[in-house]
């Protein structure tokens, strides 16, 4: 979230799209209700299904699964062509005036720089035109034909209401009504919040769906203000913490990233990461990358990380490609990966194409399961009849099962969607032989380390030199780990302006990442968490609910990264003169000498807005402003473009009917064999989408009796027209199949899944709730991921669970 849960109450318009907050986030949804009851907010829901959120909405518009960019592209066209944008905000705080180089082009669905054989873009031609000082050229009038605003206007002019309706199936009048409601927030006195979740991320073009939403919010001036923002609702209680701590194969803690094969020395590694400003006087905060990176290396390897050995840069692996979960299971299937440690994770349930997942696990030498519950993954080798029809005798994988604690059986912090780190205490002792995850990993680590110490090996240094100064080495405490990720001074940290002044004494906790250094004098395990556990103690355990500004900015409740800031880019809540856009919801403003207000200012505190080249509020970008057009960073292009899901009921992309290369995301990675496993609309004519229900949490709560009672048995949802056409009765049994497998369950026939008219084709949707499987106390069922395709978003590799093709028949 750029903003936070409580702040949703400040919204005038709430758009829920690519998510179903009432269903999947019932507790957080209270803030939508609060906005409706006390702020007269209007709720818009755009979804293929009339969801629990839609039941609470003021306006609902249906959409074909996977066509969100077309819908939002149409909204952008509406806003730009009718000039319903917050012009001063756009001109000052976005890259709308920036001029793109002459090499940029977009022809028949493909941007310049495409390499078809590699399915990859070279982004060189997407860059800004630079002046002699290396700064991007801008045209403050935003009239230059190659300035971002004009490029965008041309790009989105193609997304007419007729075209939107043709692609999305949303009736034109409903689409225009939504545009009209959204456009009411283009004025400084109105705010719209966007709430989304996996309904956007789980597509082959998911990142660009989110970007389209963000572009819309920027045009409306809705980023950095109370009641606004792009708010990703995280689906597990601590999944925000997972990304923050970098638990992805190419990530390091705090959104630092692993070096690639081509980056074998520190200088090359820093170059694309520690970006110089592209406009005069801008903060370009990632310039501090070396401070965060060196502090991380010091946290991990202490004295072994020295200036001479480039802070042990050579200890880190250099990646030749992404090693995401799809890649891992592809490698297992190829026999190239033969051991797997699976911690708090149920890939047989959670990953696409169950058949391929089980085939991969069956080829392993060993599988380690660390989990508080029995999972389908732990039991993948066992025959559960039709729900898991495997031959146990053919599977030679050794499975080690370590029962672990669940969240309520341990101390620690959970990071919620609002980026709040909230400390919690153990509520109960774990049952039986269960041990904490940290304890289990520590035990494994010590055994590996002992082996390296005794026997040596190809490269023992990163293992044997790893910092491990916990008081009980086999049982590091949550407090010790939290203090470590916050960071401390190794030697005295001096004030650069006055070297006689000591800012932090050696051995003391740092109070924020501004004190981290790249000279080896500081250590911090996750720079964005610096400030969470200071010399003053555990800030995450704070429980002061005071809200003196009445905006829900409870700065004394727990601790939010970064720097206890609750709303990101909050300096954009004030106009370029430093005064609030809207006096009724002031966040931070210029006092004459510094930035002050209801939040920790997201700008250099003394950056005077009256300066000729004022410091701009988007301090993390090298431009200082937000990117409508992304010259770097996105795999499939600088502007979002609609592509069809890999499995689509339409033969072509209606935007580019004559270019098969631009049918689905041209930059998405597809493994050999998976392309063949895609189905065609001839055999699988219906759009399927998978999702959660309120009554359950993923594959966990089928182990909980009360949850099993309130939603006992697997079902699929279909519309009345489809049911009638196929002779399916409400409550009757059906078989749903894709090109990868089938499931059998009960059908819920509903008015809530409308049939859509897309380009003359009647599109029916089959809704597939997750949650059932072959273990647990709810009625046994099939794993829905038996059906899903093995392809992911081109940037994140998040699988396309939300739109694919199936057939359905009476069982």
């Amino acid at each position, binding site marked *: 979230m750029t903003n936070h849960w409580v702040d949703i109450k400040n919204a005038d318009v709430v758009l829920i799209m690519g998510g179903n907050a009432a269903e999947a986030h019932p507790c957080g949804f209270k803030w939508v209700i609060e906005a409706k009851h006390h702020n007269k907010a209007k709720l818009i829901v755009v979804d293929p299904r009339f969801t629990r959120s839609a039941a609470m909405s003021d306006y609902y518009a249906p959409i074909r699964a996977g066509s969100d960019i077309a819908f939002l592209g149409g909204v952008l066209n509406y806003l730009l062509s009718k000039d319903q944008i917050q012009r001063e905000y756009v001109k000052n705080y976005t890259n709308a005036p920036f001029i793109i180089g002459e090499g940029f082009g977009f022809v028949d669905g493909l941007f310049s720089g495409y390499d078809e054989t590699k399915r990859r873009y070279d982004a060189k031609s997407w860059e800004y035109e630079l002046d002699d000082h290396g700064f991007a050229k801008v045209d403050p009038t935003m009239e230059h034909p190659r300035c971002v605003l004009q490029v965008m206007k041309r790009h989105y002019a193609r997304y007419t209401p007729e075209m939107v309706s043709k692609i999305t199936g949303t009736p034109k009048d409903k689409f225009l009504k939504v545009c009209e409601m959204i456009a009411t927030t283009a004025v400084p006195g109105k705010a719209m919040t966007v709430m989304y979740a996996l309904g956007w991320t789980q597509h082959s073009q998911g990142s660009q769906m989110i970007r389209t939403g963000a572009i819309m919010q920027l045009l409306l001036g809705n980023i950095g203000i109370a009641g606004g923002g792009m708010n990703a609702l995280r689906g597990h209680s601590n999944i925000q913490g997972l990304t923050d701590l970098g638990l992805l194969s190419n990530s390091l803690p705090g959104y630092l990233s692993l070096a690639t094969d081509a980056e074998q020395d520190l200088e090359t590694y820093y170059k694309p990461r520690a970006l110089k400003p592209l406009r005069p006087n801008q903060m370009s905060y990632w310039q501090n990358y070396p401070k965060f990176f060196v502090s991380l290396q010091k946290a991990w390897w202490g004295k072994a990380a020295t200036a001479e050995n480039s802070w042990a840069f050579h200890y880190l692996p250099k990646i030749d490609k992404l090693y995401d979960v799809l890649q891992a299971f592809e490698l297992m299937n190829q026999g190239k990966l033969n051991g797997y440690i699976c911690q708090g994770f149920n890939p047989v349930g959670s990953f696409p194409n169950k058949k391929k997942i089980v085939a991969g696990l069956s080829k392993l030498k060993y599988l380690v399961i660390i989990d508080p519950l029995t999972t389908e993954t732990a039991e993948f080798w066992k025959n559960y009849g039709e729900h898991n029809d495997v031959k146990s005798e053919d599977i030679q994988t050794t499975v080690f099962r370590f029962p672990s604690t669940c969240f309520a059986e341990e101390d620690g912090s959970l990071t919620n969607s609002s980026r709040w780190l909230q400390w919690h205490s153990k509520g109960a002792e774990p049952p039986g032989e269960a041990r904490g995850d940290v304890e289990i990993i520590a035990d494994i680590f010590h055994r590996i380390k002992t082996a390296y110490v005794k026997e040596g090996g190809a490269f023992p240094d990163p293992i044997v030199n790893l910092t491990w100064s916990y008081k009980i080495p086999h049982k590091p405490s949550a407090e010790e780990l939290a203090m470590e990720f916050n960071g401390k001074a190794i030697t005295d940290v001096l004030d650069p302006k006055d070297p006689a002044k000591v800012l932090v004494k050696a051995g003391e906790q740092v109070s924020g990442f501004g004190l981290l250094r790249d000279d080896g004098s500081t250590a911090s395990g996750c720079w964005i968490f610096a400030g969470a556990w200071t010399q003053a103690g555990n800030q995450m355990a704070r429980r002061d609910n005071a809200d003196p500004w009445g905006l829900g900015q409870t700065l004394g409740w727990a601790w939010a990264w970064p720097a206890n800031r609750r709303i990101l880019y909050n300096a954009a809540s004030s106009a370029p003169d430093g005064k609030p856009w809207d006096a009724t919801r002031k966040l931070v403003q210029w006092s004459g000498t510094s930035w002050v207000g209801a939040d920790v200012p997201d700008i250099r505190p003394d950056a005077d807005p009256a300066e000729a080249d004022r410091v701009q509020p988007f301090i993390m970008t090298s431009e200082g402003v937000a990117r409508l057009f992304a010259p770097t960073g996105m795999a499939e292009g600088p502007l979002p473009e609609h592509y069809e899901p890999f499995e689509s009921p339409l033969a072509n992309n209606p935007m580019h009917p004559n270019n098969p290369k631009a049918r689905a995301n041209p930059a998405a990675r597809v493994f050999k064999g998976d392309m063949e496993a895609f189905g065609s609309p001839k055999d699988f004519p219906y759009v399927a989408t998978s999702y959660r229900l309120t*009554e359950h949490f993923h594959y966990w709560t089928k182990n909980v009796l009360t949850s099993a009672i309130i939603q006992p048995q697997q079902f699929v949802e279909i519309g009345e027209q489809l049911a009638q056409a196929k002779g399916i009765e409400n409550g009757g049994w059906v078989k749903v199949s894709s090109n990868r497998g089938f499931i059998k369950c*009960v059908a819920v026939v509903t008015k809530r899944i409308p049939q859509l008219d897309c380009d003359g084709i009647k599109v029916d949707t089959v809704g597939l709730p997750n949650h059932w499987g072959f273990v647990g106390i709810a009625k046994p069922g099939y794993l829905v991921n038996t059906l899903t395709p093995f392809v992911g978003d081109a940037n994140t590799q998040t699988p396309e669970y939300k739109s694919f093709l199936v057939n359905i028949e009476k069982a």
Partner: protein
Amino acid sequence: MSSLQSLDIAARSATTTPSPQVRKTPELAKLIDVSSCIGCKACQVACMQWNDLRDEVGDNIGTYDNPRDLTPESWTVMRFSEVETQTKDEGTRLEWLIRKDGCMHGEDPGCLKACPAPGAIVQYTNGIVDFISENCIGCGYCIKGCPFNIPRISPVDHKSYKCTLCSDRVGVGLEPACVKACPTGAIMFGSKSDMASWAGERIEDLKSRGFANAGLYDPPGVGGTHVMYVLHHADRPSLYAGLPDKPRISMFVEAWKGMFKPVALAGIAVAAVAGFLHWVVTGPNDVQPKDDAEAEHLRQKADDPT
């Protein structure tokens, strides 16, 4: 299960002695704002957990309703209705109306009126209608008497069960468990007048959003209720999974309490005499093997929580 005291009893089934009058307690109510209910069923789980009830793991029969009906172990269930309404602006509009069903705690409780077992049903001065289960004889008259079809007889112990409005919690100053668990504030609890005034705010908001017939469901036919609903369509309560448009206590129950009761009591006396004659003439009713098997089945069902 009540923590309320005998001093709080306003009415008692099949009892002719007058109730104590000295204590004054405020009239309470639970307000269910259907327009703010997301149907998450947290209230159902809270009810199970507070009251230590676990129903069967059932089946899906083509709806989100689960358990599919009120049972002796499920004192509240969500009822989902897909309804198409007509609006001026949009034409036909789909609505998914989600109503939490359970005892309405009527001011004029049909169950209590119909109950022949002394003290099996009581009404407290705060308005809660409670079943005192040890006095229940399982006759099922409360079901006939209830205009909302709420009580359910257990086939295991042959006693009638329904929502107590958490009289044990309320008795010690706590809100009912469902109120505490509701994440959106759709279930509120307090004095009936406060609830009516909060309902007024909600109704005004709903009217501003185009629900011209929004209103409070507090049906006068049963003297008002201590569980009330805010409805978007108060002119058509039956849209909400058959909520009675104009609930009244059954004529038979009213009649039973009135002129038929003496006649019926005479009838019972006749039946008792007839039973005695039957015993004299043909001997006692013996337990047959079939009865044994049936009892065993019920016992096993009661022992097996799944």
